[in-house]
């Protein structure tokens, strides 16, 4: 039973996310090459190795520092739009973990919400604009609902992962209004958004990470 996420559990979640991305990076590159420049796969792989480096180095640190170092590491990935967006997600989570040793279900959803706020401070993209926001918003909302309904940490993570996957899948029928793919207009319809797919992989990885650990 998983009833609190401390540094160990968060590290497992983060490594789970990295594994998911690495296993699917070719797909990510392909999705990005339709309307973008095809580099999203390699950028995400680099981001995840920065993430893992931060996790490796963080042993003994508190949650806030762990998440801060992960966010800062991803910000330093020199990854175009992805770096700041994803980096600020973890920077936001880090801020929510101020003075907190472990997260329960509500604490985790608070952290996710703060991460989302970190992302949304970087971009005007709204749900429906075919960006990673389309996976992130439903994931965070689903996590919040699960927690408010009294769900445990695993169900919070499961609902979040499912919602992220559904959100990413739904971007297939959308027309891109942000990112490079915006420029191909209606031609962007028919392919899921690369960044949204990454987010869904990250949330799937969070779940797998704690499951494997538990």
């Amino acid at each position, binding site marked *: 039973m998983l009833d609190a996420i401390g540094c160990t559990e968060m590290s497992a979640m983060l490594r789970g996310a990295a594994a998911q991305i690495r296993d699917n990076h070719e797909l990510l*590159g392909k999705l990005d*090459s339709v*309307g*973008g*420049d*095809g*580099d999203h*796969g*390699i*950028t995400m792989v*680099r981001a995840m190795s920065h993430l893992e480096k931060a996790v490796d180095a963080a042993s003994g640190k508190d949650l806030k520092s762990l998440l801060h170092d992960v966010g*800062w590491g*991803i*910000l*330093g*990935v*020199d*990854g*175009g*739009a*992805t*770096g*700041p*967006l994803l*980096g*600020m997600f973890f920077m936001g989570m880090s801020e929510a973990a101020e003075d907190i040793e472990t997260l329960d279900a509500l604490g985790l959803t608070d952290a996710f919400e703060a991460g989302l706020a970190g992302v949304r401070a*970087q*971009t*005007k993209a709204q749900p429906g604009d075919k960006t990673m926001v389309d996976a992130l918003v439903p994931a965070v909302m689903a996590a919040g609902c699960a927690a408010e309904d009294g769900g445990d940490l695993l169900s919070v993570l499961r609902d979040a992962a499912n919602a992220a996957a559904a959100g990413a899948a739904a971007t297939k029928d959308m027309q891109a209004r*942000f*990112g*490079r*793919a915006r*420029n*191909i*207009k209606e*031609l962007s319809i028919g392919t899921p958004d690369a960044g949204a797919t990454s987010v869904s992989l990250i949330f799937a990885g969070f779940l797998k990470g704690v499951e494997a650990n538990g």
Partner: protein
Amino acid sequence: MAMKKLVNKPENLVQELLEGFALANPGKVALEGSNLVVRTTPKLKDKVALVTLGGAGHEPAMSGFVGEGMLDISVPGEIFAAPGPPRVVEALRAANRDAGVLLIVLNHAGDVMSANLAMGMAKKEGLNVKQVLTHEDISGGPRSNPDERRGLVGCLPVIKVAGAAAEQGRSLDECLAIAERMEANMATLALAVSGATHPSTGDVIATIADGEMVVGMGQHGEAGGGTQSLKSADETTDIMLAALLEDLQVKAGDELFVVLNGVGSTTLMELYLVLRRAGQILESKGIKMARTLVGEFLTVQEMGGFQMCIGRLDDELKALWDAPCNSPALTVK
């Protein structure tokens, strides 16, 4: 289109190209810190410093603009990808001085996010930094909607005039005002006739059919604007220049610069044909082609095509344009 590039391991590409770039310009630039590109003979500390950031793969941009009369520091990113905020902050700190630092940012999502985050951190640290955003690509949307307009080769004129102003000892606010005046008075349109490949992934980053061309193509092969039949140099110039003059509301008597920026495999020969025609059109309209710049400044790998950038000059901007500079990509005596 298979990739035919002379590269080594993709993961080392940017590191290696920066080392070669520094080696190619030993009297002008050097690498410092986490691959910041700096001048070998720094500007005096009582003058405003200019910093920029941007993805690699567009050589000579942006690091080729580092030098006397131009930039003080460039923060190169990965291929086509902006550097993250940590290195931009590092550059702002390295450039920091009482006179202040002007950060020049091209409007691309990643660059803007990195710049904004870095500016926020720098200001928290008490650094005297200001920022100017270039977004002169008219294919993005109307002038009233600047967010949608990308920053293309117009960064070069902005860097040139702001860099000259800084060298003259103008204040940060004056340099900013000059950069913004230049920015507000220019317009760019890009043409692509053939595609390119991504040097790290090998992916085709734009495909353009035989006999076709795309007006309004972005700097990374992002489509946009209109696909149309390939035209002659004169016809293409007519189409592009008309759009630019309209957007910038150029009137008889105005004095313009014209920058033609080859993006890769288009030859200087072709650019000269385009410039010749542009000169004819402007003359027929009573508009003065006061300054010109033709070459490869901001490239998109081996893509075929060019960016046409025009800008309205006043006497002060002309004088700044003519001021000496000495950077790898542009030297004015």
